[in-house]
């Protein structure tokens, strides 16, 4: 049985000014899950397009820091509709894959979800930083 709960998250929205003008990360949550035996730390958020034009994709970086502020782990991912951009060997080049992505319409929202395997984190951490790194 999977147990999950919302945990406190230290959030920094430090993306570029341009990115922040176009997209906003909302309802950021983190949770530990037992995914059929694999323990994963998952970051969830809503990606809201606050501009008046479609957004093809949003790239978000997640960083974990220990109690001394030292970086423990880092990973980036795309909004749910654009997760194909993270795949290799499928859909051709990056630009080809972008064409397959359903854009976030103006005023629309998509989900962002990124899971880190506990084995890949490796060390205790205290804070999670979620940052917009690219919007197109």
């Amino acid at each position, binding site marked *: 049985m999977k*147990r999950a709960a919302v945990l406190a998250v230290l959030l920094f929205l430090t993306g570029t000014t341009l990115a922040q003008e176009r997209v906003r990360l909302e309802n950021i949550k*983190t949770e*530990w899950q037992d995914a059929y035996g694999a323990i994963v730390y998952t970051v969830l958020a809503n990606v809201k397009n606050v501009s008046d034009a479609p957004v093809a994709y949003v790239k978000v970086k997640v960083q974990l820091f220990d109690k001394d502020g030292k970086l423990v782990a880092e990973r980036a991912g795309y909004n749910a509709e654009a997760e194909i951009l993270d795949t290799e060997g499928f859909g051709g080049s990056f630009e080809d894959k972008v064409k397959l992505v359903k854009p976030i319409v103006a005023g629309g929202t998509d989900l962002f979800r990124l899971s880190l395997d506990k*084995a890949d984190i490796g060390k*205790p951490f205290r804070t999670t930083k979620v940052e917009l790194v690219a919007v197109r």
Partner: protein
Amino acid sequence: MNRTRVLVAALLAVLAGAGGAADKVNLNTATKEQLVALGLTESQALQVIAHREKSGPFLQVEELLAVQQMSKAAFEKVRDQVTVDE
């Protein structure tokens, strides 16, 4: 007299502060008895130990929520009494 009171108050404050983190139970070394003493059931305590033996040391106190049989209520009961820091 007042100075003595201030010194005693300061000493008590220091002692109280020193007890904080040190008094917490480390999830990565805790025995079943220690976990039960915090308020977990014996079954939950055994699951905590099984979890760390299977997937390695806890990386966050909140990882307790991925332990089987760990309810939100049980987690809230112990979260301020446990640590993963060495």
